[in-house]
């Protein structure tokens, strides 16, 4: 009974009601992951499970048993920033910063989805094997992460920059 969190094994809580979000924040003091709405509407609690973006508020910790969780603390640190963190700083991808860890976790997984050729609702040709990451595509693919400061334009710019660097 263990969840691998940022590379370390953590015991699954005895109480099955504990969400993955509460385990991260209250149990492990990994407070990079944020509590926003706590009902699946805002994306602030986004983390990666086995590389896929999910909402930790709607995931019971027990559901993550045997799986690998990556939080913002696992993506980068103050001395070793993730390319998306660098780009968010350069392009003003945040104001208050509360939604930022969720935005960056979501964006990291999203870029891999695009690389894998996974379409979105606005992708014109569902059968296409190669995707072009337009501004419209980024907005649709990141629609599960809300920013009440309204930094969305900077967020989209930052993500497009990282995608372009990655492709180059």
């Amino acid at each position, binding site marked *: 009974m263990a969840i691998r969190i940022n590379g370390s094994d953590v015991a699954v809580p005895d*109480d*099955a*009601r504990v*969400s993955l979000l509460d385990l991260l924040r209250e149990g492990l003091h990994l407070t990079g992951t944020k509590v926003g709405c*706590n*009902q*699946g509407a805002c*994306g602030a609690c*986004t983390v990666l499970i086995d590389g*896929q*973006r*999910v*909402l930790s508020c*709607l*995931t*019971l910790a*027990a*559901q993550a048993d045997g799986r690998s969780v990556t939080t913002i603390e696992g993506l980068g640190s103050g001395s070793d920033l993730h390319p998306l963190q660098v780009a968010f700083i350069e392009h003003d991808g945040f104001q208050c910063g509360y939604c930022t860890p969720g935005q960056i976790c*979501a964006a990291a*997984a*999203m870029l891999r*989805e695009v690389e*894998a050729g*996974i*379409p*979105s*609702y606005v992708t014109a040709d*569902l*059968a296409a094997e190669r995707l072009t990451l337009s501004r419209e595509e980024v*907005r*649709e*693919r990141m*629609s*599960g*992460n809300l920013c009440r400061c309204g930094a969305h334009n900077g967020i989209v710019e930052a993500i497009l920059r990282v995608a372009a660097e990655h492709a180059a």
Partner: protein
Amino acid sequence: MTPISYSRATSVAEAGRLADGAGARLLGGGTNLVDLMRKGVERPSRLVDVSGLSDAIELARSGSLVIGAAARNSAVAAHPLVRQRYPMLARAILAGASAQIRNMATVGGNLMQRTRCLYFADVAGSRCNKREPGSGCDAVGGFNRYHAVLGTSPACIAAHPSDMCVALAALDARVQVSGPGGDRMIPLVDFHRLPGDRPDRDTVLDPGEVIVAVELPASPFAGRSAYRKVRDRSSYAFALVSVAAGLTMREGRIEEVAIAFGGIAPKPWRASRAEAVLRGGPAAGAAFAAAADAELADAAPLAGNAFKLALTRRTLEAVLSELTGGSL
């Protein structure tokens, strides 16, 4: 939340055994159930995680595509066979929720998800016949912008929230279930109930029955199909109205046609009356309007959602125009 036990089912039979009791709920991705538990709408004492059961997506000898109930929504939408042969379904799934939620949500869970009626979710402050039979409905005289106009009853006007199920309804999908009485196949259009005087019962599933898979027969509509969703913001919102449609043409006339609506009924709404008007007829604006009229003839709009009649009409006409080659 009240204390719960959690276990993982390793077979359909085990899931059925563990779930055969009033306090038990099957858990797929948890995107709906965990939220409803936190709100106090659902109060299970036992969760049986069925996300480890079959998530295979494969062709059967019959030519049908069989999708295991534990398949994640994102995996279904990304699957090459779904994108090629059932683009309407891929598009409908991608129109729903967010990428995070689609990564978690399962096909079986999507079929079982409950209404997003705000009064249903408001345990402390609202009356709701779906949550508490006989208590009354605060939506009828309340804020009912998001509620249904077709198939409602005096007891309940809640709309079914799924996008995926709307495409499944248009594609003649069948739900394979297994239970104490044996296995059975339920057409998707018969899987969900209309509220009548028992709005607490969303589906026709019997106690102990488990969804095993969803089966899609071969579809003639891959070349001309669409899922169009109209909502209050351009992404990550439930439908005000959605239309899943597919058709074939022959000598300028509509040959076969399948249409289903979301957002306007208590269940995924197969528009059989509209189809009957269109089948064999011309691909013309007047026919599209007549089809919408036929389907909406029995609509029961309320103060907050009467706009859905015009919105449904226009959305259907636009989709049919697009699919038959015109522009509106």
